[in-house]
C-alpha cells in the first residue's frame, strides 16, 4: 500500500494556486469525467476556450463569483507510489487563519508566488506561519513563468530571496526546494518543461512523490489524553473500566508505569484493548482503550504520560496565532482547550508581535489583531501538563475559545518558538 503525504498549499490572491492544484489533479488523472465536463461547461459559459482548471477546486458559489478561494478545501489524490491529502488554503490576507489550519497537520507546504511579483508580504506571512507550526518541509513554486519568458535570472532571484527567509526561520537547506512552474500550461508541475532547460531540479510531483515522509516518533515520551471512560455495566462486562483515547505521542506497553496528570498519581497499564483484540503496545496515532491497575477516579480531561513528564503549570508563556476579528487584549477571560481538557484562562501581557515584513518581533504591541502572530503570558484556572511545542506538538498546542460565542479565537503553542534567529548567528553557520 502506498504511503501518505499530507501537504498544504498557500499563496497570495491571483498567484494561481487553485490552477496549480487543479493542474496537479488533472495531470495525475485524478479528475473524473463528470467533474471535467462540469468544468468545461462552466469555462465555456465564462467565455474561456480552454478549461479553467481552477474551477475544479473553487467549491463555493461566492468563490466562483469572485474568482477567489475563501475556505480551506481538502483534496485527495493518489499516484502509484503515494497517496496525498492536500489542504488547499486561501491566500487573501483575511484568510490567513485557514493557512494556519492547513499547516497544523501538514508534513510539507507548497507556497506559490507570481514570477512577475516575486516574494511579497503575504509570502513572508505564510513562511512565518509554516515556520511557527514547524511544517517540516517547504516547496516554493515560482508560478506564471510563462509570463516572464521562463527567465532563469528572475527565477534565481526569487528563489534566493525565499531561501534567505526560510534560513532565517531555521529551515535546513535540504528541507526547502524551489521549482519554476506554469500551472496554466503545466510546466514542471507533473511533466518536465522544455521551456526551462536551465532547471535541473525535480518537477513538483516528482518531489512530492519522493520527498521523505517523517513518520511519527515512536520513541517520544508517551502522552495520552483521556477522551472517554468506557464502562459497559453489561452482564458480560459488569466491572469493566477502560480509558479511551488516541496515543498523542510515543508508545505505551502493557505493564509500564504511567503518571496521571495533572494530579500526578502513578499506576500501571494492565491491558490495551481494541475491538479487534488486545495489544502488547500502542503507538502514536492509534485509538485504543487502556485498562489500569488502580481505580483513581480518572475522567475525561486527564493526561496519561510517561513518568518524568514536565510539572503541570498554572502560568506560562505561549505563542499565539490570532484567528478572530475580535482582537486579543490583556485581561481577556477565555477558555483554553488542551488535549481533552478545557480550563479557564486569563491573558496577562501581550509581550510581542511578529512583524511579517522583517520577521522581527515588536515589543509590547498592546493587542493582537486578526492574522497577527505574537506572544502572551497566560494564567489558567487549573494546572496543565504542557510540553514545549517544539518537543511534543500534540501536548504543546492548544486553542483559545470565546466563552460566550464558542468561536475558536487562537491557535496556541507552548513556549516561544516564534523567535527568528538573529542575522549574526546565521552568518556564523
Amino acid at each position, binding site marked *: 500500500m502506498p*504511503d501518505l503525504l499530507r501537504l498544504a498549499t498557500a499563496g497570495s490572491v491571483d498567484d494561481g494556486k487553485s490552477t496549480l492544484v487543479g493542474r496537479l489533479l488533472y495531470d495525475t488523472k485524478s479528475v473524473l469525467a463528470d467533474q471535467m465536463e462540469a468544468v468545461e461547461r462552466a469555462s465555456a459559459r465564462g467565455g474561456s476556450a480552454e478549461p479553467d482548471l481552477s474551477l475544479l477546486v473553487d467549491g*463555493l458559489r461566492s468563490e466562483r463569483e469572485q474568482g477567489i478561494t*475563501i475556505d480551506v478545501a*481538502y483534496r485527495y489524490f493518489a499516484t502509484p507510489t503515494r497517496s496525498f491529502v492536500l489542504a488547499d488554503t486561501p491566500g487573501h490576507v483575511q484568510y490567513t487563519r485557514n493557512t494556519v489550519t492547513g499547516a497544523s497537520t501538514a508534513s510539507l507546504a507548497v507556497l506559490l508566488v507570481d514570477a512577475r511579483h516575486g516574494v511579497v508580504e503575504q509570502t513572508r506571512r505564510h513562511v512565518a506561519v509554516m515556520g511557527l507550526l514547524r511544517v517540516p518541509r517547504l516547496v516554493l513554486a515560482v508560478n506564471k513563468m510563462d509570463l516572464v519568458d521562463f527567465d532563469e535570472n528572475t527565477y534565481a532571484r526569487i528563489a534566493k530571496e525565499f531561501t534567505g527567509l526560510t534560513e532565517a526561520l531555521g529551515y535546513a537547506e535540504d528541507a526547502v526546494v524551489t521549482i519554476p512552474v506554469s500551472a496554466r500550461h503545466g510546466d514542471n508541475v507533473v511533466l518536465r518543461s522544455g521551456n526551462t532547460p536551465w532547471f535541473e531540479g525535480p518537477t513538483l510531483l516528482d518531489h512530492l512523490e519522493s520527498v521523505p515522509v517523517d513518520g*511519527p516518533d515512536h520513541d517520544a515520551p508517551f502522552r495520552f489524553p483521556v*477522551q472517554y471512560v468506557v464502562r459497559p455495566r453489561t452482564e458480560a462486562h459488569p466491572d469493566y473500566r477502560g480509558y479511551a483515547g488516541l496515543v498523542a505521542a510515543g508508545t505505551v506497553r502493557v505493564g509500564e508505569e504511567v503518571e496521571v496528570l495533572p494530579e500526578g498519581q502513578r499506576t500501571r497499564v494492565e491491558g490495551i484493548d481494541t475491538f479487534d483484540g488486545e*495489544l*502488547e503496545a500502542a503507538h502514536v496515532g492509534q485509538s485504543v482503550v487502556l485498562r489500569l491497575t488502580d481505580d483513581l477516579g480518572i475522567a475525561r480531561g486527564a493526561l496519561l504520560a510517561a513518568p518524568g513528564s514536565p510539572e503541570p503549570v498554572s502560568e506560562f508563556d505561549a505563542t499565539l496565532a490570532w*484567528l478572530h476579528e475580535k482582537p486579543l487584549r490583556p485581561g481577556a477571560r477565555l477558555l483554553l482547550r488542551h488535549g481533552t481538557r478545557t480550563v479557564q484562562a486569563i491573558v496577562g501581557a501581550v509581550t510581542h508581535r511578529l512583524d511579517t515584513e522583517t520577521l522581527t518581533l515588536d515589543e509590547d504591541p498592546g493587542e493582537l489583531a486578526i492574522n497577527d502572530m505574537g506572544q502572551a503570558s497566560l494564567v489558567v484556572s487549573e494546572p496543565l501538563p504542557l510540553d514545549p511545542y517544539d518537543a511534543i506538538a500534540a501536548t504543546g498546542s492548544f486553542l483559545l475559545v470565546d466563552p460566550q460565542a464558542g468561536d475558536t479565537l487562537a491557535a496556541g503553542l507552548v513556549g516561544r518558538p516564534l523567535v527568528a534567529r538573529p542575522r549574526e548567528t546565521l552568518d556564523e553557520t
Partner: protein
Amino acid sequence: MSAPTQTDQLAALESEAIHVMREVAGEFDRPVILFSGGKDSMLLVHLAAKAFWPAPIPFPVLHVDTGHNFDEVIAFRDRVVERYGLTLEVARVQDYLDDGRLAERADGTRNPLQTTPLLDAIAEHRHDAVFGGGRRDEERARAKERVFSLRTAFGQWEPSRQRPELWNLYNGRHKPGEHVRVFPLSNWTELDVWRYIAREGVELPSIYYAHTREVFARDGMWLTSGPWGGPRDGEEVRTLSVRYRTVGDGSCTGAVESTAATLDEVLDEVRESRLTERGATRADDRLSEAAMEDRKREGYF
C-alpha cells in the same frame, strides 16, 4: 493479536474516525447517528461499535424516511438495529405530505423534502450532535466541510461561521438550539470505504452488488420502476444487470450497469471508474452547479 502498522492508511483513517466519535461522546449530551442503511452510514455504526467496545454504542440512530425506499435497504436497516441493540428514530417525509406541511414536487423527487423532517427530529429529540457519513471527496462544496460543522438554530450552514480546525482539537461549543454535524469519514475516499468494507467484512444491503433489475433511463441514469413515478410515457423499461453506488431516495438514485457481484469485483470497478459516485447516480446533485451548497445552507447534510 493484530497490531495495525503506522503505514497502514486504513488503520489511520479508522483511528481518526474513532477519535472523532469519542470526542463527541465526551463533549455532547445527546448525539445521534444519521442512518440511511447506505454504506457510509453503515460504516459509522461499525466504527461506533469499535470505538466504545466492550460497551454498546452510546447513541441512537435516526433514519429520515422519504417513503421511496428500496425494500432491501429497509430490511437491512432493521437487521442492523436489532444486531447492535440500537434505538431507532424515524422521521417520515410521508407524514409531512399527508398533513400538508410539505407538498410533493412536480418531478416526484423527495430528497430535497428531507430537510424539514430532519431538522424537526433534531429539535424534538434535542440532539446536539448529529453524525453524518459525508466525505470531502464526494463533491466540491463538501471538500470545504469541517469535521465539526456548526449549524444554526435553523439548521443552517453558514460558511463564515465555520471554525478553523487545528491539529485534532475539535471545538464543539454551541449555543442552546444550535447543533453540530459531525463527519468522522471526512478524509475517506470512495475507494477507502470499499477497501475498509472488504477488510472488515462489513455487511451491506444487497443492492450494492450486481443484480438483475427492471430499469428505465431518465436524465442519463438508470432508475428503478416504483411508486415514485416511473416509468413515464416513452420511458422504456429494460432488464439489466445493475448495482447501486449510493443509496438514497428511489426517485433520484440511479443504478449503474455492472456485473460486479462480489466485493473484489466492486473494488476493481471503483478503481477503474471514470465518474464520481454522486455524478453517476444522484440526479439531485445535478440540479445546479451549486446544488449541494444550497441544500447545505438550508440544513441538509
